[in-house]
């Protein structure tokens, strides 16, 4: 780079680039279903990409770089499928990155795409995340036990259910809180035309009557396995200002990682999540999340994770998250609406689930969420986590740049 672009070096951070503004220009997603036999992997991705571009009023020719996210390649049996997908994603001849940070990958995809703009490298970046889980079987792929170990793995539910039990014990939450979340999310999902599970008539009683899969987690408190994709177009300030449509300004992003298992790990309230949230709020200038965030799309694959993450994110004090749920404060119209889209409990194409949270948060502040719009939403959180509650990615978007 030429010397004229470099700042004179007079202090520790003096030569750094200014953190440039970035905004979501458009978001799109597929109709999520347990099986999408009507499309190929490429067709599934393209359905989301075309909707995102239409939402942004742009074409593939306007895109400078593509970031792809998805969870394990074993789900589709394709090694680095973005290689084969280059034409379908309009990436041929352009830079293409493939992110994989376990279940948080959709969020990480959004963060990396935002970084490419914030670093001043590109004007418009396309983030695409997908999973076509019906190509194989997620329980199988997540339960392959290498030799020598106890063959006890039973998918993500088997992994997380014991930690949910720990949360219930630690917080003293009533047993029905998980079912309350399920009822809310599934009813919200019924307002979302893209949701996989749409159950307007679900009740507390029906959730509590559903089979116990991984005690204490019931069938109706569990995310489905979905085919689906999500795409988001992120632009720089000039692109955002040139857009004729509402945009969602990215106020802050944050990612943190800790080891899967270690002596002293808090599986209920992981420090990586708390640290990521603290950094996020600081960067976004938010001092009281519950007062300053209008709507949150939080990665809740098992219903009990709503109160757990409310605490981890700082919306409630440790042990108090369930009280917000119980009081109905996480419903649309409540103090902190959580997952008006229905969230992961209604649609879970794993690799895309994080980006869906990010996209839905953007849609809320753009005012384009339709029937699941939170009225007047100006500032929103998108959140994802993955691995053994060890990878966290999140962002705050708002209807104005500052």
């Amino acid at each position: 780079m030429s010397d004229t672009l470099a700042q004179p070096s007079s202090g520790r951070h003096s030569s750094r680039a200014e953190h440039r503004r970035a905004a979501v220009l458009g978001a799109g997603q597929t109709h999520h279903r347990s099986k999408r036999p009507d499309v190929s992997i490429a067709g599934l991705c393209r359905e989301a990409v075309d909707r995102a571009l239409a939402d942004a009023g742009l074409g593939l020719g306007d895109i400078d770089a593509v970031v792809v996210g998805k969870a394990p390649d074993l789900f589709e049996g394709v090694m680095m499928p973005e290689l084969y997908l280059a034409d379908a994603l309009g990436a041929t001849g352009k830079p293409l990155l493939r992110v994989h940070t376990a279940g948080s990958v959709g969020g990480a995809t959004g963060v990396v795409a935002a970084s490419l703009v914030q670093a001043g490298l590109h004007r418009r970046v396309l983030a695409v995340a997908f999973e076509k889980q019906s190509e194989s079987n997620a329980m199988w792929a997540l339960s392959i036990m290498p030799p020598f170990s106890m063959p006890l793995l039973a998918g993500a539910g088997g992994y997380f259910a014991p930690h949910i039990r720990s949360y219930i014990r630690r917080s003293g939450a009533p047993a029905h809180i998980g079912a309350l979340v399920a009822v809310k999310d599934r009813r919200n999902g019924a307002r979302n035309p893209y949701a996989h599970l749409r159950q307007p008539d679900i009740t507390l009683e029906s959730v509590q009557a559903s089979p116990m899969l991984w005690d204490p987690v019931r069938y109706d408190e569990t995310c489905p396995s979905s085919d689906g994709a999500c795409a988001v177009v992120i632009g720089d300030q000039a692109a955002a200002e040139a857009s004729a449509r509402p945009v969602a300004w990215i106020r802050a992003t944050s990612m943190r990682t800790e080891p899967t298992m270690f002596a002293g790990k808090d599986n209920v309230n992981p420090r990586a999540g708390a640290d990521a949230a603290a950094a996020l709020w600081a960067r976004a200038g938010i001092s009281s999340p519950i007062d300053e965030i209008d709507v949150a799309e939080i990665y809740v694959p098992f219903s009990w994770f709503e109160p757990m993450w409310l605490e981890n994110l700082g919306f409630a004090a440790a042990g108090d998250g369930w009280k917000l749920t119980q009081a109905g404060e996480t419903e649309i119209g409540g103090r902190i609406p959580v997952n008006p889209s229905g969230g992961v409990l209604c649609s879970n194409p794993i690799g895309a689930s994080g980006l869906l949270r990010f996209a839905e948060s953007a849609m809320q502040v753009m005012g384009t969420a339709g029937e699941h719009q939170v009225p007047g939403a100006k500032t929103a959180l998108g959140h994802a986590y993955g691995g053994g509650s060890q990878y966290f990615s999140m962002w705050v978007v708002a209807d104005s740049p500052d």
Partner: protein
Amino acid sequence: MSDVAVIGFAEAPNVRSTDGTTNGVEMLVPIFREVFEQTGLTKSDVGFWCSGSSDYLAGRAFSFVSAVDAIGAFPPVMESHVEMDGAFALYEAWVKVLTGEADIALAYGFGKSSAGDLRRVLALQLDPYLMAPLWPDSVAVAALQARLGLDQGLWTERAMAEVAVRSRAAAMSNARAQLSGQVSAEELLAAPMLADPLRAHDCAPVTDGAAVVIIAAADRARELCERPAWISGFEHRIDSGQLGARDLTRSASAAAAGTAAAAGAVGAAGAVGVDVAELHAPFTHQELILRDALGLAEPVLVNPSGGALAGNPLFAAGLARIGHAARQIISGAADRALGHATSGPALQQNLVCVMEAR
């Protein structure tokens, strides 16, 4: 754009097979220690970590999650992972430093290629409907590319053998290389075909390994390294995945990445203005394609480390090329250097990092 430089590099010995795990920890712990000793840094100085690895290389979903044990990632770290060569992890790390969110970033890549049948595993990188079900192995696909150039008179079997001769000779000064030695083109050409028109010497060996590179923002780089390798251009591009629809004798993506990366460089020892280039060419003819695409002619020194033909740890080899190129600058041997990484069948995706002394 702010200034960022490579200030440290280490790689694990390139070997045919380690007895370590596929999560790379055994290879990573020593090279993290080595790169921290080089730079005087500790893990708490690193603001952003990014790794590159592959689940299919390891034969397991989420195979990379245990690799963070090598970091000692508690208190939690700002970290990301790409399912790509570590060179692309370095790119993501560079982006993070450019945004100002980190002063110092560390990228690593690791791969235990020996865990599975590599040639079959890599067949899964091909179109899953039209090609992968036939299980074309990775050497066979490269051989199709090699013959195209041979038939068109773009290169000869001797020219290919000479690439291998240079690689092995250069690797004699690289203690971590897997293959090295003095051989003649005649000896190599006398060997039988492995996958006609490729002989064994045309193909990179199967290698286990890992690599790590540390980059730092301007003032930190100057403070930590006497002669930082300043990144003047960092670009990557991808070509179509339709093998039969692109000209395999050329690399459009490498050329485009090279041109874009050179735009930031001053001087002109070659088209991209470098003294030395480390190319990630897993096959001899691919080095010839890349030299052409990147405009590397005499007197540019290519692959003083021996390159990928002397050791090709998948998901680390590209990052190692950038590391070796940077080392040329840091040591004072070169003023401008280019590191290259490739990904996908037949050079489908290419990354170019141009660095310079200032």
